[in-house]
């Protein structure tokens, strides 16, 4: 099982903050997005993290991973 998490404006846009799913084939961050959100292209400026480290959308995900999608950060 992998966990998808959404934050801030992207969370609001999608209407939920978390999705959990089982994957049975090799997936990247971007392909898992397409699988879960087939009608919504991954926005260009969305940042992606796996297990709380920044990764590129081409990063391969594995079972147990927490995959996060969020807008550019605005802290500080």
């Amino acid at each position, binding site marked *: 099982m992998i966990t998808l*998490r959404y*934050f*801030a*404006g992207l969370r609001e846009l999608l209407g939920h903050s978390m999705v959990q799913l089982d994957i049975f084939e090799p997936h990247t961050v971007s392909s898992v997005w397409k699988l879960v959100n087939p009608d919504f292209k991954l926005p*260009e*400026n*969305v*940042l*992606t*993290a796996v297990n*709380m*480290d*920044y990764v*590129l*959308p081409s990063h391969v995900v594995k079972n147990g991973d927490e995959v*996060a999608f*969020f*807008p*550019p*950060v*605005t*802290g*500080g």
Partner: protein
Amino acid sequence: MTVKICDAAFDPFVEIQNFQHELALSGKFGATSIFIGTMRDFNEGDNVQAMTLEHYDGMTQKQLTKIIAAAKTQWQILDSLIVHRVGEILPNEPIVLVSVWSAHRSEAFEACRYLMEELKANAPFWKLETLTTNEKRWVSKPINHELSVL
């Protein structure tokens, strides 16, 4: 080296003093460089009455810890403290505190600036402003430079 996330108002000077009292550095540090970010009541030409700071709990701490580790490879710093507010914030309340202790001033100045710039670039916080018109809007910014290959 301490990273602290606060979901209620904090006093940066109390935080620094409490931290400094615990430091076994009496007589060893000659320089302390401190940055405090405070909520303004205006942004991009509009009046702001409140703000909600969302963060990615866990990733925030992980990224801030990495940023401090990177600073330690570049400057001889004796200790550092980062405190960041989350949740509901009102104008004039502190949002972030970065403090660096070192023997000499250039390390403290440079590492403090670095920590603050890296925090803004990489720590997963998002600001939702409530304008005085009651309109809510996400503070947005251009895509993170280091990840612009995405």
